[in-house]
């Protein structure tokens, strides 16, 4: 996989979640995503950016335009140094929440993208990577 463009954004306050959404929208349009695919990627980014802020106590997102053979896509990596997720299986279940949300963030955003990867360690942090191909 080749990265042809990349950028990193901070997620420290709730305004940053809005900025992440706007950046993902811009990159999705540049990649020529359909309207539905744009909307799915923006929504997934919004969920994960909020998780980074609310549960991870803030962190960063890395945006990458990736190419693999003839395929082009957008990869987002959300990273925090927060408390980590003790029970990952539970956290990935629809409707399970320890916060103020509906518990659809992780499980829901997984359904909105083509590739989803999560790495977490209690006391060290969480990293979620999502990719959507055009």
């Amino acid at each position, binding site marked *: 996989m080749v990265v042809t463009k990349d950028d990193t954004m901070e997620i420290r306050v709730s305004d940053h979640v809005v900025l992440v959404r706007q950046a993902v929208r811009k990159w999705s349009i540049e990649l020529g995503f359909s309207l539905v695919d744009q909307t799915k990627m923006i929504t997934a980014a919004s969920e994960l950016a909020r998780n980074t802020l609310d549960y991870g106590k803030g962190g960063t997102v890395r945006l990458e335009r990736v190419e693999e053979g003839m395929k082009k896509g957008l990869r987002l990596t959300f990273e925090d140094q927060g408390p980590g997720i003790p029970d990952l299986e539970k956290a990935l279940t629809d409707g399970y929440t320890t916060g103020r949300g509906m518990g659809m963030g992780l499980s*829901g955003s997984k359904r909105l993208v083509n590739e989803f990867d999560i790495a977490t360690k209690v006391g060290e942090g969480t990293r979620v990577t999502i990719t959507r191909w055009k």
Partner: protein
Amino acid sequence: MERIPILKMGDFLIVTIQVDMHDRLVTTLQDDLTSMISSHGSHGVLIDISSLDMVDSFIGRMIGNIAGMSRVLDAETVVVGMRPAVAITLVELGLSLDGVRTALDVEKGMILLRASTRRRLTEEDEDGRDEG
């Protein structure tokens, strides 16, 4: 403080969301609407989301909360103008906005609200006759 304006039109409250809302703004709107329903005795709330290019679980929950709270306060909520791509994403995300009434546009939403207010008045009339 930044706020989404709420317009009062007779018995109804009308909100058009035209900005990309951060979470605090979403929560403020929910609080403002609830207190305005109660202070004006409004019987209907119309929320136009035609400008929103995404509805995530936080905004979805706000919409559900407003519908639930207004119901308790004897008002009806109609959400209008959801874009097709937003609807597809919302359902795939796992939210179906159960219990929230929707209409395609503001005009159809107003018809829906008027109809439910009329129905309510008729029922009140009938109740009155029964007691008399």
